[in-house]
């Protein structure tokens, strides 16, 4: 049977690259270890910022002044920084897989955390986590614990590439930002501690509670942290004056900046169990495809030595009520 079907064959098309990338990110949230990535769009940006700032901290001129002492970054509080989502798209496009690696040229994994391991219960998760796992005492009707998993400790050392940073600045048309001399080859150490991921599910909603002791980033001390943070903020797309103003107002050793896309989210400071936190509501962005259903609420807070993130498709009020019940 001979079908003259060329016109049908030519209807076939490759999926649009942007759509394919967004869908892949959505699916990663479901993969092993990916419950922690439920808030990936926000934290990927934060991680990129931290990496940029941390890399800039490794400036040898300041190391001389700091002698051999190390400064240590730990998350104690959160600050939202509104930014244009198009900038993050551009950063992702520049380095699709590892945005934070775009200024590093070498990574030594000293301790591989491996994928999160599903545990039989919250009590069972306490062992590998190294702490008693907190859980919500209140859940909206229908939601029930689906899985609990623990990601283990990891250590890595990253080597800064000045040329990559220059390329990045050039690609972003940040021609007025100077790369500090002597930056190339400087190293920072990243220590991630066990992370516990609880996933709750109902017919209509999903909720994830992530908790861990703060990751630690070791870097040379004595630097002009606000100045270096300012460069990181410029990379995120803030204009020079705004970047300078924000950079000067923060404690860069303990504040995790959470970039919030201006076109798809809103945020406000909140108090969770008496501790300062940040509530981000992600609205449905314009556009087609996988993004259409990505609306939800994230609340971030610290309590003692622990960092919490609660993310769900619930209303902000319900998410806050659940957060207040975590103990």
């Amino acid at each position, binding site marked *: 049977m001979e*079908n003259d*079907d060329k016109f049908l*064959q030519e209807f076939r098309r490759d*999926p649009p690259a942007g759509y394919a990338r967004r*869908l892949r990110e*959505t*699916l990663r949230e479901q993969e*092993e270890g990916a419950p922690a990535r439920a808030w990936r769009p926000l934290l990927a940006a934060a991680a990129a910022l931290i990496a940029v700032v941390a890399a800039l901290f490794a400036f040898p001129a300041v190391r001389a002044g700091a002698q051999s002492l190390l400064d240590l970054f730990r998350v104690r509080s959160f600050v939202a920084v509104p930014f244009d989502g198009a900038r993050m798209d551009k950063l992702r496009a520049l380095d699709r897989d590892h945005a934070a690696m775009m200024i590093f040229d070498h990574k030594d994994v000293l301790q591989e955390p491996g994928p999160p391991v599903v545990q039989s219960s919250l009590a069972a998760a306490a062992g590998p986590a190294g702490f008693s796992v907190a859980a919500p005492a209140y859940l909206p009707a229908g939601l029930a614990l689906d899985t609990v998993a623990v990601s283990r400790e990891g250590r890595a050392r990253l080597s800064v590439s000045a040329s990559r940073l220059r390329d990045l600045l050039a690609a972003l048309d940040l021609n007025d930002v100077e790369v500090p001399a002597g930056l190339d080859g400087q190293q920072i150490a990243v220590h991630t501690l066990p992370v516990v991921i609880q996933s709750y599910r109902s017919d209509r909603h999903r909720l994830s509670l992530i908790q861990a002791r703060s990751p630690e980033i070791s870097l040379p001390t004595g630097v002009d942290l606000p100045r270096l943070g300012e460069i990181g903020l410029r990379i995120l797309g803030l204009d020079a004056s705004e970047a300078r103003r924000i950079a000067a107002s923060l404690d860069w050793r303990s504040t995790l900046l959470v970039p919030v896309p201006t076109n798809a989210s809103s945020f406000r400071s909140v108090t969770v169990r008496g501790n300062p936190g940040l509530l981000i509501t992600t609205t449905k962005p314009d556009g*087609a495809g996988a993004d259409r259903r990505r609306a939800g609420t994230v609340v971030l807070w610290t309590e003692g030595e622990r960092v919490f993130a609660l993310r769900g498709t619930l209303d902000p009020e319900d998410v806050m009520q659940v957060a207040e019940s975590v103990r």
Partner: protein
Amino acid sequence: MTAEDALFARMETRSIPAAAVDWDAVYVQQLPGIYNFFRYRVGDGPVAEDLTSITFEKAWRARARYRRDLAGFSTWLLAIARNVAVDHYRAARPQLPLEAAASVTTGSTPEDVAVRRSDLDRLGALLATLAGRDRELVALKYGVGLTNRAIAGITGLSESNVGTLLHRVVQDLRARW
């Protein structure tokens, strides 16, 4: 029990630990076929993207329960896609009214059509006039790229029946192209 639950319930228990699977590779391999299945099945554009997303998200949610060999994964994914398409047509009005198809075949010179519509639009409009089963066969054949034998295995039709039906559909489309 949903159609997907029924599918999962039929899965065998032999085989590959989920952690050992390169999901990046699976995704890259499977996405074009599923995406094009929906383009032929429901039309080009955001609806095809949305249904593709729904299919993959359903499959990924249950992939830990998927214990068969990976060669069977595409068949399983396709079964989910077919159910998603059926649900879509149950829940929604047809994306293109029949009157739109009429404009492809009547009242316009080829030159007018060429000016007004791209080939993609024209073929999309023609596909929208097909009966559900015929359109699914076209989607499986040209969107996914399956052989008639594979289509027969999925649809329950005989291989010769698949060939005959496809021949008839393609000739009909060709005549109106």
